[in-house]
């Protein structure tokens, strides 16, 4: 990384860390700069990697089939005109409808059938039985069609403990990932920028 790059990165990093003291103009400036850069990045990437090769170039090459996505995409921009905004519902309907249609077999296969199959394929071991009990009791915790009393109550309670283990493990992982990011930034500030530690 060049020296000017290191200085820009270091100053931006310090501006964001200044929020730990309190909300201040340096943090706000860095926040708005990050928003601007991210918006500009998304704009350039989406036009250069999707619109240009997927729509503009085929249209310039005479591909008349691309007129349909051109019209659908154009109708999205009508949303900016309040009186005609209702027309933008048509491309939205194509997107939502097609997305819903694709998700039905995909969700049933990946999230339901494969998960159930993987749970039941290993019930000959102790861990497999513990897993099967966990899946059934956790699902029963979310069974709201009848009041959770009688036999259902202790069963749902067991499901709660399984979920607490999952949430605890997820929380532990989140803490670790954030701390490792912090270590990375500190290594950059103390090593690359101030050269106080060897990297």
């Amino acid at each position, binding site marked *: 990384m060049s020296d000017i790059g290191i200085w820009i990165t270091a100053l931006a990093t310090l501006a964001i860390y200044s929020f730990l003291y309190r909300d201040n103009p340096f943090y706000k400036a860095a926040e708005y700069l990050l928003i601007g850069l991210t918006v500009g990045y998304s704009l*350039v990437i989406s036009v250069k990697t999707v619109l240009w090769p997927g729509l503009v170039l085929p249209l310039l090459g005479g591909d008349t089939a691309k007129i349909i996505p051109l019209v659908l995409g154009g109708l999205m921009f009508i949303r900016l005109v309040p009186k005609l905004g209702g027309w933008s519902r048509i491309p939205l309907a194509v997107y939502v*409808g097609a997305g819903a249609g694709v998700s039905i077999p995909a969700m049933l296969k990946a999230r339901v059938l494969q998960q159930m199959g993987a749970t039941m394929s290993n019930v000959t071991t102790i861990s497999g039985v513990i897993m099967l009990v966990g899946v059934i009791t*956790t699902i029963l915790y979310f069974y709201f069609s009848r009041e959770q009393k009688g036999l259902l109550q202790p069963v749902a309670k067991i499901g709660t403990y399984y979920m607490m283990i999952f949430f605890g493990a997820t929380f532990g992982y989140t803490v670790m990932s954030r701390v490792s990011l912090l270590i990375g930034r500190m290594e950059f500030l103390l090593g690359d920028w101030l050269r106080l530690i060897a990297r």
Partner: protein
Amino acid sequence: MLRKIPVMVCAVCGVFMAAQYFIVSGPVSQLYGTVLDWMQIIFVCALLVGILHVITRQIKNISRPGPERWYAMIALFGIALMVVLGFGWGISRGSPFLWVFDHVQAPMQTTVFSLLAFYVASAAYRGFRARHAESAVLVLAALIVLLGRVPVGEIISPYVPQTVSWVLNVPAVAAKRAILIGIGLGMTATAIKVIAGMERTYLGSGGR
């Protein structure tokens, strides 16, 4: 008319995209790919509408008195910088566009996420005060994971990493699977409602 047509379009697209999974045919697969391309273009156009909205909002903020106008100028400077660099010099490796991404945008994003390490610590303090058996289990699971994934865990006992692996691979996965099954069933039910026209929130307030 602008309420009925979108519902019909949604139903036709939804039924076709769901049915194509079960139909092995060249033209159907081709049409499926075409509709996916359309979806990608609609998504990008929707994204551009959102970006235009952000830009007009920031331009409006410039005309307002107070410190907000300076922040709006900084945001617009960021957008303009990336647009000029991206369209002027390209987005290939070694371009000024990627230089700004690597040296300014990506480190700033990482710093924002690392900032959460401090807040996660205070959240942990509040969450880890075990008042019930359930929260005690949560604390224990989090501590086991934290201990088992750092070198000190193995120094304490060689069984610590093994216990962590078991906790992560058996009880944690069991709850995760049950939640995934629930999400899958919920999403399928919602998708059917959307295609059948019972769920119209995507149409906005005029869809009711």
